[in-house]
């Protein structure tokens, strides 16, 4: 992971060996051991449980790409999550079961919708951006609620999952491909934020007028980041449909969008691996509290508020060697 940065540059950037890299590797290894446990204990449910965690982690990583690195607070990303899931539901209802077809259609549909939605939403900033992304998500939420042919508001149980030959519907295969996808997306994000594109995206978060004054019109870069981010969420939705065998409009509700956002905030905005910690953390805390009391949201709410106030770089920042103050290194992110 240690890139040989600035080999011949006059001032080499000091390579910090961040202990958090080991935390990330350890956590991913734990996730990789889940199928082994499931196989030994003959307990497929754990695959669904941890698979759901990975799906949320994937979506949070996607949202973080624009929220954390580009300061675009979208409260509508559940929409793309839903597109991914409904693509599987609708196509298999129509009799198209090829898994690669499902994935391709999900990505294409997402691009076709994310470009105009992003183009409109990105003309605004801050609260207006939040509200416009929310409005679009609600629009599609009600569209899917009214689609009687696909279950309406009650959702749709899938008779057939995305077909991948002998692996179709195999929980182990779904889980492992999901884990692999998450690793690839994390690696992609890690490279992306350090690339020329990433430099522009991160600069747009802090000082957009300067960027424009330098001759780099920021809007196209922000739009491309938005589309990437939407696609990652769509892939997460594609996995959600296959893991649970069920799609419903509730996947697209604003509560899911908010959950993605909380995961990013809790894990660490603008860090590559933070959202994974945030997703795992939030779901574990939720489930832990649920076993204690049925009024668990009463406890969870204040907990999140405190976490966001105290942990400026989230749980990931808390683990930083310098105790969460390393805004610059966190901004770069390490995976």
């Amino acid at each position, binding site marked *: 992971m240690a890139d040989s940065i600035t080999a011949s540059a006059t001032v080499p950037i000091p390579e910090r060996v961040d202990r958090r890299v080991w935390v990330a590797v350890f956590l991913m290894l734990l996730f990789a051991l889940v199928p082994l446990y499931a196989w030994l204990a003959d307990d497929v449910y754990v695959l669904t449980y941890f698979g759901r965690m990975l799906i949320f982690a994937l979506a949070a990583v996607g949202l973080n790409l624009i929220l954390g690195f580009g300061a675009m607070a979208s409260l509508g990303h559940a929409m793309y999550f839903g597109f991914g899931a409904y693509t599987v539901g609708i196509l298999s209802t129509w009799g198209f079961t090829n898994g690669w077809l499902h994935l391709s259609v999900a990505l294409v549909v997402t691009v076709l919708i994310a470009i105009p939605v992003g183009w409109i939403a990105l003309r605004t900033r801050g609260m207006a951006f939040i509200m416009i992304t929310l409005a679009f998500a609600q629009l599609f939420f009600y569209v899917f609620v009214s689609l009687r042919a696909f279950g309406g508001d009650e959702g749709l149980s899938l008779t057939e999952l995305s077909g991948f030959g002998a692996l179709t519907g195999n929980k182990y295969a779904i889980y492992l491909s999901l884990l692999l996808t998450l690793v690839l997306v994390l690696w*992609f994000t890690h490279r*992306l934020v350090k*690339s020329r*594109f990433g430099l522009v995206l991160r600069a747009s978060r802090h000082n957009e*007028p300067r*960027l424009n004054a330098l*001759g*780099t019109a920021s809007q196209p870069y922000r739009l*491309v980041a938005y589309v990437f981010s939407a696609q990652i969420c769509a892939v997460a939705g594609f996995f959600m449909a296959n893991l649970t065998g069920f799609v419903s409009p509730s996947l697209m509700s604003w509560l899911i969008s908010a959950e993605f956002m909380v995961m990013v905030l809790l894990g660490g905005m603008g860090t590559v691996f933070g959202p994974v910690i945030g997703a795992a953390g939030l779901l574990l805390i939720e489930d832990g509290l649920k076993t204690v009391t049925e009024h668990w949201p009463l406890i969870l709410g204040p907990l999140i508020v405190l976490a966001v106030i105290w942990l400026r770089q989230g749980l990931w920042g808390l683990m930083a060697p310098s105790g969460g103050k390393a805004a610059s290194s966190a*901004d770069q992110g390490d995976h």
Partner: protein
Amino acid sequence: MGAAPFEVTGNEPMLLTVDSLVKHYGGLCVTDHVNLSVAQGEIHALIGPNGAGKTTLINQITGAVASDSGRIYLSGQEVTTWSMAKRARAGMSRSYQINALVASFSALENVLLAVQAGRGHNFHFFKPVMQEQQMVQAAHAFLDRVGFGDDRSQRVAALAYGQQRLVEVAMAMATHPRLLLLDEPMAGLGPTESERMIELLDSLRADYGMLLVEHDMQAVFALADRISVLVYGQVLLCDTPANVRVSELVREAYLGDEDLQ
């Protein structure tokens, strides 16, 4: 365009020509039919009391603020309706009165941002920018040129103000502009830092045309080929430093006796 004491060679158009530019904020006329020009290799200083409209004029020239009327030409090409980014790509570059660096970036990253802005599109998603050897070396060269020290990978927010000021100028240079619009580069600098900044700008005069907004009269008289005096949005006078220095008009309107020995 008024008298142009600066020697204009042949019939080449001026690097920058501002023709009767106007800007109102409500009832207040902050830029009142301003005419101005900058030739290649010229340092044209723009002075005037606080609130005279100097920064607004820079913002109009760069496109950050839309003008109500008038025209702006860059090497004879009209750019009045162009976006800020397009003007920048055409060869205009500015520095800011108050540092406008990306605070969480290092000095090197800030200058890299400017270097890569001058090198085509940035839709390169996968290769770390620090591995783009040519660009990194170019960024280091600009930092060398402005005399920036060794803290190049530290966050600029943690740097001394004078150092940030140098990064500001390095960024303005790094997009390979023809015209530099410098908004009070001496602001906030100590005496020795000011001396160095004057030397730096003097060493750049061969490569750029410069419009220099500055309050530091020592710097203005040391550097300027021509001086325009802006008062209440109007160009009161445009002349050589020697003539501006003895002008009663300017003395009354702005300078005050103590500023001129």
